């Protein structure tokens, strides 16, 4: 799944949080959707990842 954010800064905050939680993830170009999120997003297979996103605004794109 892809976790997409409005803020690029939040992408890297999310990466930091997931890495600290030992959740495998990588930063990849954001899939094209009908809404313009920032250019990069988090890709991960771990469904628990979205529970760690704290106060950040994000969407899940499968």
């Amino acid at each position, binding site marked *: 799944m892809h976790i997409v954010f*409005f803020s*690029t*800064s939040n992408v*890297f*905050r999310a990466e*930091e949080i997931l890495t600290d939680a030992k959740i495998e993830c990588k*930063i990849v*170009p*954001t899939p094209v959707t009908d809404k313009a999120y920032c250019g990069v997003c988090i890709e991960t297979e771990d469904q628990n990842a979205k529970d760690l996103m704290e106060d950040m605004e994000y969407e899940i794109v499968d």
Partner: protein
Amino acid sequence: MIYFDNAATTKYKPEAVYEAANFYLREVGVSPGRGSYGIGIEASRMLYKSRCAVGKYFGMSRPDKVVFTKNSTEAINLFFNGFLKKGDHVVISCYEHNAVLRPIQKLKEQGIIEYSIIQREDLGLSAEDLFEKYSQENTRLLSMTLASNLTGRIVFREDVFEVFHEKGITTFVDSSQGAGKIRLSMKDMKIDFLAFTGHKDLMAIPGVGGLCCESLEHFNPLVQGGTGIHGEEYTNPDIFPEGYEAGTLNMPAIWSMHASIDYLTEHFDEIASREKYLMQYLLDGLKGIDSVTVYDEDNARVATCSINVGGISSDKLVALLDKNGVCVRGGIHCAIIAHEAIGTVSTGTVRLSLNYMNTEQEIDTVLDILRNVGE
């Protein structure tokens, strides 16, 4: 050459700072927040790490809540112009740099705000008394410099910030002087917003500054343009921090600050101790020269002082020191209200500002020159 103008810019930086800027230019060299290719992503990651390094250094609850600008002047303008609204009242100190005074004065001339200046003789009042004397019903902001760029006096007071903050007034620190010399915790010291610049005692290369936002209160951006996100919108998106950083950021300078903050964090106590020693050494020497006047001599200070020498004007003293290979700054130092406060508008002063890389021998050389002037 003897460089005693560190309050303007620290000329000599830790080696790691030069290496970081060089590394960014040669090995990365692309913009953050733009391309989604590998090295572009790495640039964005370095930007994020830099934000967090700054935020941690200033003791923020959320260290990534940092907006980068080109210097503190831009950060101050961003905050004042974006935050203040018609009818607001602002309290500032008499030691503010023109970087604070001028945007505030301009907003006043535009009929948007009013402001009051805490007078020098009142700076020793209790926090409650200061609040009673200077706040009004419409006071929305307290703005204080961390330290005077003119005399080195430490102006920021935690107790004053606590009282104003408790009364619902937003608090702001201009940390341009002293950010690398005084430990701050925005969270604990009730500092809602803080402007910083990299090129002074944070020891980064010139071209980076910023605004730390402990408060989540909304303000408007200063510059409209490309933000790397929401390119379909006709104005900046209301997204923090990118919505406040239109245009390409100065990443070599930002990455150099990441390195300088690492260095400062590791060596903070030894730098502070060395600078305190050197400043006292200088002040003791100046006390021994009858013709020298030191301003704010008895106040707690950073490693900066301002002097005049009887019998010679400040501009001639600067020229004489320069002839002897000594770099100091004379004149008004972009701090007109501070000069009004200490009574030196007509004479100016000569500012000597040290850092930990200076030596006793350099101070002795300058003292010898001043003694000869006195004689």
